[in-house]
């Protein structure tokens, strides 16, 4: 007890020396959660101070869920910093705007013939924008600034393509070509002819992804739904005007059966987490992966020598273009109650200029939000970024499917891959769930 008492006294003396630092009014404070980007942000802050004399403090609070709690608590005490990010759904974003904590950036975006606004990918800005008559009741405007973007596509290993006797610069353009490669991989694994394997079993995997995470299945399926039936029919299905038993939806579900039958899917795909899939692809064990653009960062750390490229999931139909999921990766907003609003906006303008965006992209391996700097970033990042023209996201559709229907659909896909159900059975079951939910809603 005496020992504890002495220690306590020492601690009291030490605590008295720990006082919070006092920020001057011309310091712009930024709260963020992006551990990987912290050194790059700090470097940019230094450059900005050298250029303008205004100090920018990037304060990292990770992981992201703890960061979100901090932001929510800070709202209660009105202690939000000058610039911060809002994580979560658009509903959360709208509640911050409606409570008056987020500055409307529209006037700044539209200055000089909308120069700032036009520097971004249109779809990156959409996540931060509330349009006329939005269902959240937020005044029309742009409330956030994207600092990077994200797309989810397919990637292929160029070295393995060469070993399989395929052209490493020609990824499959059609779904049939993809299946054909799947058959070739299966044949190679059975000891069939393939360069560099000398007829021996290669134990190569075709396609890997984290399909134990249902949203990834949903993402892949919706890509093909857009390609097979187009956006209008998908929206009509969500609204309950088209049933999931429609032949086009059966075609979407059949994609997974065809993939399974071709032998392209790795065994255990539906119980695989994405981290494992990333490890397999990075170590050259799999020819294809379905992954988000964050994978560039991950593969770089796991295997810097990996030779790969990104491509859109190969289309199965010429009726409609292929659409992938994408949009703003991370965004910042300006605190509407900050004393340094103008300084904060000026800093964000500078941060999203061509040179700073190119630097951020090169150093952090994230896709730039500024569409003008694609020729200044590594080719793999440019490949992922260019697909923004094909990007869509459920948050931007204006209507949402019932979560339980999405779950039934994605679990149905897993059952098809596991040979437990046929596409027709799954379609029937999903439609039953949909009808039940619609009935409940009408009550």
């Amino acid at each position: 007890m005496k020992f504890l008492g002495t220690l306590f006294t020492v601690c009291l003396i030490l605590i008295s020396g720990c006082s919070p630092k006092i920020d001057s009014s011309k310091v712009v404070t930024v709260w963020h959660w992006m551990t990987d980007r912290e050194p790059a942000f700090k470097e940019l802050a230094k450059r900005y101070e050298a250029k303008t004399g205004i100090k920018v403090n990037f304060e990292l609070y990770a992981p992201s869920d703890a960061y979100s709690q901090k932001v929510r608590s800070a709202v209660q005490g009105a202690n939000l910093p000058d610039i911060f990010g809002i994580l979560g759904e658009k509903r959360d974003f709208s509640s911050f705007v409606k409570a008056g904590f987020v500055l409307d950036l529209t006037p700044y975006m539209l200055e000089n013939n909308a120069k700032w606004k036009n520097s971004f990918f249109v779809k990156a800005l959409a996540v931060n924008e509330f349009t006329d008559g939005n269902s959240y009741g937020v005044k029309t405007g742009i409330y956030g600034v994207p600092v990077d973007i994200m797309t989810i596509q397919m990637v292929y290993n160029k070295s393995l393509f060469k070993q399989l006797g395929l052209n490493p610069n020609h990824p499959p353009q059609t779904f049939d070509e993809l299946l054909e490669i799947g058959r070739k991989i299966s044949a190679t694994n059975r000891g069939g002819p393939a360069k560099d394997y000398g007829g021996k079993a290669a134990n190569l995997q075709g396609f890997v992804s984290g399909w134990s995470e249902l949203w990834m299945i949903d993402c892949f399926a919706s890509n093909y739904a857009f390609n097979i039936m187009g956006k209008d029919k998908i929206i009509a299905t969500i609204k309950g005007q088209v049933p999931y038993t429609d032949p086009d939806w059966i075609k979407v579900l059949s994609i997974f059966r065809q993939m399974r039958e071709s032998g392209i899917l790795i065994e255990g795909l539906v119980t695989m987490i994405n981290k494992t899939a990333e490890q397999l692809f990075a170590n050259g064990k799999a020819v294809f992966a379905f992954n988000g653009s964050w994978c560039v960062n991950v593969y770089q750390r796991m295997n810097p020598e990996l030779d790969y490229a990104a491509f859109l999931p190969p289309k199965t139909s010429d009726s409609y273009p292929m659409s992938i999921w994408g949009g703003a990766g991370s965004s910042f907003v300006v605190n509407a109650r900050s004393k340094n609003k103008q300084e904060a906006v000026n800093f964000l303008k500078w941060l999203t200029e061509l040179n700073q965006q190119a630097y951020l992209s090169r150093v952090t391996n994230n896709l730039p939000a500024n569409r003008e700097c694609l020729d200044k970033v590594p080719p793999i990042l440019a490949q992922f970024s260019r697909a923004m023209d094909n990007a869509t996201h459920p948050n931007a559709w204006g209507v949402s499917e019932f979560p339980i229907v999405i779950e039934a659909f994605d679990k149905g896909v897993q059952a098809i891959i596991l040979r437990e159900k046929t596409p027709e059975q799954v379609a029937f079951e999903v439609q039953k769930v949909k009808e039940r939910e619609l009935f409940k809603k009408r009550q």
Partner: protein
Amino acid sequence: MSIYHKAKKTTINTLIHLFLLAVAITCIYPLLWMVASSFKTQETIFSDISIIPRHLHFENYYLAVSNSDFGRYFLNSTIYTVSVVFGIVVVSSMAAYAFSRLRFPGRNILFIIFIAAMMIPMPGGFVPLYVLLNKLHLRDTAFGYILAMISMGLATSIFILKTFFDKMPKELEDAARIDGCSKLGIWWHVAIPFAKPALAVVVVFNALNVWNEYVLALIIFDSKNLMPLQRALMMFRGEFLTNYPLLMAGLTITALPIIIVYIFMQKYIVKGVASSVLG
């Protein structure tokens, strides 16, 4: 004893030992993996699954300490842990003694309120605590954080100590009173020495809790230089990729003080848990 009974006893003992061995391995293996991984590289951490790595990368420890302001965070966590544990031991032992031995109006209701506080999950209290500390101008101060952590550790500690004090022989108190001890004197000279095993449990449980706490610190502190050790570890966890060798090296260093505290107090802990919690 017949051969049959001897064989039966040996078989049962063997099975029990095998089971306990399996449990012990499952407990120790994560620790061994942590230490082994702290000597590997990012590439070999998943490819070389052996517990004894082929090449030992001692530099991971240097990098873990030098890359993340480790020393400052380590000192902060030490200060917070000692202060909070001291505060909890003093306040909870006094409160538990009062609940157990003194008769005053509302005693049972107050005790029930304290016990009810144990049922509230920690994150549930974060926002009210934040608002309270903000109003008291104690947010973003070490003192505010220590007070908040003391408050969070009190309920369980009072419960453990009260159960222990309830079993203290009344004769001990009477003897102390005859010798001229006041209520405070009885608490100090009789109750505290009597409750050493329970106090050991309180010290270890709370030390572990404070040492590993991060979320409340993240919410209360804006200043990086006040953050606890867990922040240094978080720096090794990227958004999409974790630097496992440095994280494991950091975790190994972080686990050491708690393991030392446990080793020093283990003789009291088993006794304390058995008598306080199991009744």
